[in-house]
């Protein structure tokens, strides 16, 4: 019991340190440009929180998070484009590439800010729920589930590219000027967007922690480790997995929605196969089973991408690849397992991997 208390206390200290870092240290230490980049990394971290739950805790290799990220991002960007254009006007790209003279029916609801905001989470949740119901009931798992996610990501990206007149095609939705009435070009407002993202990330982390340490969280781990045994005990593993999958989709959607004002663009390049894999890599490098590991891993990988590409513009992809290989070959539990590995080396006694949350 004491050990449990100690762990909870450590987690709270970690959380408080994270909050101080996000709200006091980072805004003071970073330039406007770097803070903007940091906001983007935090969006990646938000996706990683969902992956930690679904993959790390639930064993569902979610290789299609780009779809949910994209649904949230597009829902938000569609509203912001409509708000930029003003009531009754078409967004700029539709005037350029479109054939229709009026807004397509499925764009119309997004003119309403409340509907659009709700859609950023509810749309991915609905898609994940529908897909999850079909897939988990049929007991699709392992590699098949992962491939399904990839196929979905590829299909979504191809569809977006093909519908240039209504989705902006490969360009995506760019040139977003305002965020609910606030001019995004103003550095003060960019800071506001950063604070919103940081606050939402902290809330998402809190909720995920509550979920992981609830009875449901234990059931989820039980399903991951011995699904058949859980089934024989009278539970329906399909529902347990569904909840984790849906929550992961919702967080990815939220991250996508916040990514848009932070970066100012959403495009098919952010929803396809490659970004879907990159989301998972961040969580894997950090430690997928640990919330702190997944968040820090996602931020670290995104930061390394920027830092390496600025330092070595011609060869950074090799360094990045090397980083992944080294991290995953020598620390299969991710960076979060580093303390445990060190302790084990010292004591030569087995310690569970990935318990540093």
């Amino acid at each position, binding site marked *: 019991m004491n050990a449990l208390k100690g762990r909870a206390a450590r987690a709270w200290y970690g959380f408080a340190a994270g909050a101080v870092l996000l*709200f006091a240290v980072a805004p003071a230490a970073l330039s406007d440009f770097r803070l903007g980049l940091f906001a*983007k990394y935090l969006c990646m971290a938000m996706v990683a929180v969902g992956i930690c739950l679904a993959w790390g805790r639930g064993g569902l290799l979610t290789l299609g998070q780009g779809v949910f990220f994209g649904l949230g991002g597009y829902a938000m960007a569609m509203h912001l484009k409509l708000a930029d254009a003003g009531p009754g006007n078409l967004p700029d790209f539709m005037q*350029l590439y479109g054939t229709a003279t009026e807004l397509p029916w499925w764009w119309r609801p997004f003119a309403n800010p409340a509907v659009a905001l709700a859609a950023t989470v509810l749309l991915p949740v609905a898609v994940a729920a529908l897909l999850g119901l079909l897939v988990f009931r049929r007991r699709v798992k392992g590699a098949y589930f992962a491939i399904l996610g990839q196929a979905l990501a590829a299909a979504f990206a191809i569809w977006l590219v093909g519908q240039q007149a209504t989705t902006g*095609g*490969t360009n995506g939705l760019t040139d977003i000027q305002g965020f609910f009435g606030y*001019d995004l070009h103003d550095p003060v407002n960019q800071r506001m967007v950063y604070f919103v993202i940081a*606050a939402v990330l902290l809330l998402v982390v809190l909720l995920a922690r509550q979920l992981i340490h609830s009875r449901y969280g234990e059931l989820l781990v039980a399903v991951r480790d011995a699904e058949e045994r859980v089934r024989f005990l009278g539970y329906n593993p399909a529902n347990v997995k569904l909840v984790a999958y849906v929550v992961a989709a919702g967080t990815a959607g939220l991250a996508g929605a916040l990514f848009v004002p932070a*970066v100012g663009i959403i495009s098919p*390049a952010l929803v396809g196969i490659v970004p879907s894999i990159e989301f998972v890599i961040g969580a894997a490098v950090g430690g997928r089973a640990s919330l702190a590991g997944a968040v820090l891993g996602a931020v670290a990988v995104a930061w390394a991408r920027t830092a390496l590409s*600025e330092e070595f513009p011609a060869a950074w992809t090799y360094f990045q690849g090397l980083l992944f290989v080294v991290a995953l070959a020598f620390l299969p539990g991710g960076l979060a397992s580093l303390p445990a590995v060190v302790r084990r080396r010292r004591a030569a006694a087995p310690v569970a991997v990935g318990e540093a949350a």
Partner: protein
Amino acid sequence: MSIRLIRSLRSTGPGAPRPHRRRLLAGGAALTAVVALSACGAKTDTAGASDKAAKIDVSGDTVKVGLLNSLSGTMAISEVTVRNSLQLAIEEINASGGVLGKKIKPISEDGASDWPTFAEKAQKLIEEDGVAATFGCWTSASRKAVKPVFEKNKSLLFYPVQYEGLEQSPYIFYTGATTNQQIVPALDYLKAQGKKKIYLVGSDYVFPRTANKIIKAYAAANGLQILGEDYAPLGSTEFGTIANKVKASKADAVFNTLNGDSNVAFFKEYKSAGLTAAKMPVVSVSIAEEEVKSIGPQYLAGQLTAWNYYQTTPGAANDTFVAAYKAEYGADKPTSDPMEAAYTSVHLWKAMVEKAKSFDPEKVRAAADGITFAAPEGTVTVDGATQHIYKTARIGRIGSDGLIKQVWDSGEPIGPDPYLKGYSWASGLS
């Protein structure tokens, strides 16, 4: 598993209040307060509130410029050649004393064939490095992604690739062709050759779709017939169906806006379907010398291309450019239209800065109109109103040696008309 654990697993509903729930609420309230306090920036309807000019770093004896091309990813093969010729131009300028007495210091960034990365790097070049101008971007999508970045920072981008027109940003100089300097002359050429039935093949992205929209409008007004229009996903190598459809259509010519690797597969299928340049010529607008080399001249010999420059374009300026490029990067390296436009863009920027006697983007823009440069493609002139340049349109035929020989040109440089305002058939396009 103990009985207690099982029981606890079974009741997944909300249990007894947990000790840290109250702390969660307090934390949430504190976060909300911080966010509310920080929200006091400019609103979208207060015009001019966010105006800020780019800060250019001219301290010391150098001036920085940004080079923003994809050095990794699918576009790297094309964009690296542009990077090389940008560097060649910078070395030449530095060797002859620099700009306004300052040596140019290029800051290199990798756009990684990823549009949001382009936007991120553009912001970095402007804000962190204080560059006086940025040269680069290839795909329209990358240009669209960085356009708002350059506009909000009031910094200049020189864009060196032919594109689909319908754009005119005050902070972008377009040194590649717009549609009336490439696609429209190509259609004029086909029409003059008596090719009446045309089939459209393109990659599925912005440039081909917009180009084909323009082509269809032209065809409707000029009595040409469009027999079919097919798009393949970017990077697709499956062209059996399309080649057969083209063959069955019995078109007079094919207008090809495919990009990159797809061309390899398309021309192989085209040849194996028994179609030849003599029977049904293909006019391509995205295949230059570099691409000919990678596709293989044996598949392309005799086919047509539409550009503003070829390695074989006569003139002393081009001889010097080709010789300098080969000396720097290897005798087997060809020069192409986008490379030439990139090379030209650096020299044009230098001329604008010297006329303005300042690196300030606003002054450079004001000085731009009428600037000329003896470019490898011939003398080019900047049109200040559109920030595009006057360019001669050239139709070329691909030879079995991989070089492209000009078969027709427009005689004189064509004035840029990005919105095709001077063409009555194009009135419904924008």
